[in-house]
């Protein structure tokens, strides 16, 4: 890949921010803790030792440790050192987002499956709630989005339809759902193309999208939730080993 010459072309390297060193160390320690290699209750090596092992300065170690502490992965105990916490009971969702991408570049399938399920459930509920208020302008916009989907050629690449769902989420006015949606966007932005394909399962279910919008327009909350569930279900089930019971 060639880069067009710019005014800064005389630069040999771009500056490596101090943060990226802390980022890498943070990722290593996080993986060690989430994988259980550093068990809950164990002590991490001292700041000085970590700096030596990683070949980085102590400020970077301190930053990495602070981030682990904020995420609820460790306790920094005065006079004792750094103790690994029980992340299952103490950590926040931030840990999970960090944990999606493993150190070896792969994805943690359990985490992806659990996030996809959460996406399905939250978006189906957003559709349900939107059917209760069904503002005219929102219905009109969603309808035109579905019309555009229908106009696509059959061999158009599948997409996760973020614009559609983003509009639906914004229109139901729930900031918690919006943040959950942003989480999904943040992960999707880092996914390799073939994985984005998985997230797009269901994107060709134009009739279901159509029925979803019409259910919202008709104020039929259950039907709206049901159609959203139909569209988003296939993606969650791709990763979800225990099959949900048929109902």
């Amino acid at each position, binding site marked *: 890949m060639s880069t067009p010459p710019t005014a800064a072309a005389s630069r040999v390297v771009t500056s490596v921010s101090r943060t990226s060193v802390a980022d890498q160390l943070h990722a290593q320690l996080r993986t060690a803790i989430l994988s259980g290699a550093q068990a809950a209750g164990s002590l991490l090596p001292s700041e000085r030792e970590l700096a030596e092992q990683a070949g980085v300065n102590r400020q970077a170690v301190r930053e990495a440790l602070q981030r682990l502490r904020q995420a609820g992965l460790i306790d920094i105990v005065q006079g004792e050192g750094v103790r690994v916490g029980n992340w299952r009971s103490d950590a926040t969702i931030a840990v999970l987002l960090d944990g999606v991408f493993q150190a070896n570049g792969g994805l943690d399938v359990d985490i992806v499956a659990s996030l996809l399920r959460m996406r399905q*459930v939250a978006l189906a509920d957003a559709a349900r709630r939107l059917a209760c208020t069904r503002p005219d302008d929102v219905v009109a916009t969603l309808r035109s989005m579905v019309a555009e989907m229908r106009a696509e050629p059959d061999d158009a690449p599948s997409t996760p339809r973020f614009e559609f769902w983003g509009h639906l989420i914004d229109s139901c006015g729930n900031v918690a759902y919006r943040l959950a949606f942003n989480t999904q966007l943040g992960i999707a932005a880092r996914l390799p193309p073939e994985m984005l394909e998985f997230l797009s399962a269901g994107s060709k279910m134009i009739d279901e999208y159509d029925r979803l919008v019409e259910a919202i327009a008709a104020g039929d909350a259950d039907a709206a939730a049901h159609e959203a569930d139909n569209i988003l279900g296939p993606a969650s089930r791709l990763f979800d080993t225990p099959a949900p019971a048929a109902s």
Partner: protein
Amino acid sequence: MIVNPVARQSVADAVYAQLRDAIIDDVQPAGSTLPSERELSEQAGVNRQAIREALQRLREANLVTIVHGGGVRVRDWRRTADLALLPEVVVSADGRIRPEPSMAMLQLRTVLGVDAARLAAERVTPEGIELLRERLATAVATHDAVANPSSATMIAAYERIWIAVVDASKNIAYRLMNNSFNAASVQFSRLLPADDTARRDHTEPYVRLVDAIAAHDPDAAADAASHALGVAERVMTMLVSNSG
């Protein structure tokens, strides 16, 4: 010893929390620029290293972009922040409960809790059932034994049931979201009236919930969960909107 050691970090934490709250409350709206590191350090009376750490945390939370050349620009957090920020959106650093995000979070909690109950009924192990029964018994005993059960005690007993439910659901996202919800519940419990009438006789849906999960009946589990969480959602929504 007259004073305990003040960790350098707590200074950075405090600066981060102040700036974060200014952004969430739109005191520093999206698109605005924060004062310079030097100015912030003077205003807060702390050293620049603490300011730098606070700014890095804001950047990691997607609340600001640090422009090359030093400026710090506020982002539209509703568009850029992720779920990790939710607990901080719900309660400010000085303990202020923000009504609208609180109600939003309670709704999310209900819908995820109902699905967790459904999954738990499908996936629970015999050990999981045993744990659920134990925690239910504790909750019922707490409810019956105390003439005027303190909200915090009762909420904690219910929370332990939910932890067992989300564990049984084997959905790690639900498990960690539950941690965030629990932290917020503790804050919300401050709003409960002292006589605690709002939460009386609410063990019944929990009995049904545990029975349904033990019977591997997803629909009944979802229904009981919806009842248990729906009650909490309505009570809290009322209290939060009155407080705001």
